[in-house]
């Protein structure tokens, strides 16, 4: 925490140190790109200065990725000019972009998992037909890169076995190995834990010091403020502003992104807790390998309150959610919904809990919440397809299901508004809204929400937060798990901190400053004593 304030404090001085009107690494003039009737990029003008970190923010679908794909040669612009280091170029394919010194770290890594790190790095840049020769050269080069940029990896480790943070380092190394001077990073922290993200930022700072130019695409404003020198905001295919990061603020950026004022902090009234709706007693849960991940956890959630579970990812939150939602049978302990114990036997735990009035928004919407190959209306009833309102017996009342989907699309502002569209074609935020609509828009007692806004853009975050608050005000009991501390703090009426499978602290709303929570999350039981 202290580190980020340091960097923020330094930023204005650092910017002032740099000479104004420095060299331009990349300049785009009047770039246009359309996909059918959709204009993904409209008259984009952009200058990226050499040796800086340039942030590009915008909501999902604002055209950031399209623009970068044009720069990386994945697409050709319909019109417009590209200058790299002052030279006008026409980038025909990725190979050409690489030759011009442009490297890209994609949001979804472009790695071959069964290959070693070295093999991944040389792939496509082998300098000899015999592998051993290429690998030997790459090994030496990798050592040099590791020293220059503190990018340490085990060159012989198999990529599929290393952590996501390491995989990302391999992607960066791949680009550097090919001699990239300009690095494009597309949503690099979406898959990283906070610690890994911090590490990445240190690497980026190092790269900048060595004179590399970095373009950082993100929708997380905190990252923009922490690492970038300049920032461009994109909205609906246009760049709406480019400013020095030091001269702006998260509020201003958010407003520019969405086009209206956005409340980054959620407004809510004081909670009015009623009866206990969810009661968990002495729950112990083991993971697939038989390792206990949740250890003797007890908690209650009352009607009309939001209980947030904070914690560094991997401290048992996921397993706790899985147990409470009926996906994983606990080893010990009991779960009560409105006072009625839920019994586990067989595989229908989740269905039974749903009938008892529990709704579950899973942490990973693509893996657990949706069948992305289905049409929107199909996902809108998934898990409830046996309900009488969607037809009796074997017959599915498609008309009723679609009508309901249309109603929910309106109520939850899901875009595009077509229930027949394949779910994979919705943006992350809208996919999340489909899950939320399905789970929230029904008669329920207890709502369990995991990572409600992971990979969701700002406008949608605001909407989702407001929906959760509205559910609370209707008197539902809500259990929220999130790795975003800000989210936990702004939504929860009570915060439980989970560490190593235990709940080690309970903090009431208002008493939770970021520092104390951070210490609890790090496993310090008595933050006062740690002074």
């Amino acid at each position, binding site marked *: 925490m202290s580190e980020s304030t340091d960097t923020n404090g330094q930023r204005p001085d650092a910017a002032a140190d740099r000479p104004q009107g420095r060299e331009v690494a990349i300049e785009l003039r009047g770039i246009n790109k359309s996909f059918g009737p959709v204009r993904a990029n409209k008259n984009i003008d952009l200058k990226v200065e050499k040796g800086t970190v340039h942030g590009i923010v915008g909501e999902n679908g604002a055209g950031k*990725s*399209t623009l970068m*794909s044009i720069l*990386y040669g*994945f697409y050709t612009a319909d019109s417009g000019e590209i200058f790299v280091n002052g030279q006008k170029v026409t980038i025909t*394919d*990725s*190979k*050409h*972009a*690489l030759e011009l010194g442009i490297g*890209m770290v*994609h949001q979804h890594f*472009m*790695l*071959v*998992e*069964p*290959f070693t790190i070295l*093999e*991944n790095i*040389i*792939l*496509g*840049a*082998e300098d*000899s*037909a*015999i*592998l*051993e020769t*290429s690998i030997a050269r790459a090994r030496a080069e990798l050592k040099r890169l590791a020293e220059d940029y503190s990018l340490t990896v085990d060159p012989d480790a198999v990529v599929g076995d290393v952590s996501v943070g390491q995989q990302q380092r391999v992607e960066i190394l*791949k680009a550097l190995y090919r001699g990239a001077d300009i690095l494009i990073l597309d949503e690099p922290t979406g898959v990283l834990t906070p610690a890994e993200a911090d590490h990445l930022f240190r690497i980026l700072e190092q790269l900048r010091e060595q004179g590399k130019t970095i373009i950082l695409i993100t929708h997380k404003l905190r990252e923009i403020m922490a690492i970038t020198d300049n920032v461009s905001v994109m909205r609906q295919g246009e760049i709406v502003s480019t400013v020095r990061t030091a001269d702006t603020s998260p509020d201003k950026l958010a407003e520019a992104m969405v086009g209206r004022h956005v409340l980054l902090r959620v407004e809510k009234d004081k909670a009015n807790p009623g009866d206990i709706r969810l009661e968990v007693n002495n729950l112990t849960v083991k993971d697939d390998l038989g390792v206990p991940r949740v250890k003797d956890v007890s908690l209650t959630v009352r009607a009309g309150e939001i209980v947030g579970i904070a914690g560094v990812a991997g401290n048992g939150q996921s397993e706790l959610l899985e147990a409470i939602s009926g996906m994983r049978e606990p080893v010990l302990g009991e779960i009560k919904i409105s006072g009625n114990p839920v019994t586990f036997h067989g595989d229908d735990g989740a269905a039974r809990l749903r009938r008892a009035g529990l709704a579950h928004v899973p942490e990973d919407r693509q893996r657990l919440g949706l069948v992305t190959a289905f049409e929107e209306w199909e996902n809108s009833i998934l898990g409830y397809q046996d309900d009488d309102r969607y037809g009796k017996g074997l017959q599915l009342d498609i008309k009723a299901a679609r009508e309901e989907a249309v109603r929910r699309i309106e109520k939850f502002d899901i875009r595009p508004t077509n229930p027949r569209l394949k779910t994979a074609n919705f943006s992350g935020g809208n996919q999340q809204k489909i899950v939320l609509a399905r789970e929230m828009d029904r008669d329920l007692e207890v709502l369990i929400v995991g990572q409600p806004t992971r990979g969701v853009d700002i406008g949608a975050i605001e909407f989702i937060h407001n929906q959760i608050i509205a559910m609370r005000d209707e008197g539902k009991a809500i259990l929220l798990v999130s790795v975003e501390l800000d989210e936990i703090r702004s939504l929860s009426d009570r915060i439980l901190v989970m560490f190593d499978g235990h709940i080690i602290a309970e903090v009431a709303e208002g008493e939770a400053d970021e520092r104390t929570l951070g210490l609890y999350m790090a496993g310090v039981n008595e933050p006062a004593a740690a002074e």
Partner: protein
Amino acid sequence: MDFSDIILVLDSSVRLAVPLLFAALAGLYSERSGVVDIGLEGKLLGAAFAAAAAAAVTGSAWIGLGAGIVVSISMAMIHAFASVNMRGNQIISGVALNFLALGVTVVLAEAWFRRGGNTPNLSGDQRFGSIDLPFAAEAQANIPFVGEIYAQLISGHNILVYLAFLAVPITAYVMFHTRFGLRVRAVGENPTALDTAGMSVGWLRYQAIFVTGILCGAGGAYLSTAQGASFTDNMTAGRGFIALAALIFAKWRPWQAMFTCLLFGFLSAMQIRLQGVEFPLIGEVPVQAIQALPYILTVILLAGFVGRAIPPKSIGQPYVKER
């Protein structure tokens, strides 16, 4: 069964394993690059016919081999076009080629040679004759066991047998020690990784499938001009499918593929030998039951003993550039 009987069975195993080995290695290239090749059978059959026909007309086994390879490559390129350019379903394309080969070979054989769908019997230079390795006779006469193994098992095969077994280390080297192999394996796992590194996914798959064509061509030619002495209707009898099974059983690795093919070859050799043999208690087993043994074993091995064969991740999926 005495020692020389065992040598005979093993010798016969080697001969029977050769077409499987050619086809399995052929499939290895295609499948490692991410293109399912269920059409190995069709390519073998097409090549077997082309080789026999060309050898019969020209009198040269080598021209027959060339014709077999050309036909097999042509069929492979059709498959590549359907899979890469048209992004079609690779299973359907492969099955279509199998049926095409099954029908066309017989029709052409009948039209050209009028022998009920077969080609004329080949003899002399129209076939690949056996090669005696140096000192085979002396070794057999002077060195017990080892000499006999050398003379009977290792020496005395035709050139294609040696080529098939030579293709194993070559394939292993190409796949795991060259740039081409690295790229082929990469394109089968994650084609996007290659595309973003500035390489053409389609071109690589074409190259891999081209090699598949060459090897299948040699396998087909072996059937009709080396092991056999003419083309007969459906003479491959499912060998392409067994080779595919062997490839999966070997988890797409060349040396393992060789051993699996030898195992299947051994089963076929035993099958031939066991026909008409009286078993204790059971008596004579019907010949059909024994002939079915290699196929039954294929099913059992694949279902039960293969463990989890993890195929190349992108296998069967046409590559479509994302976004």
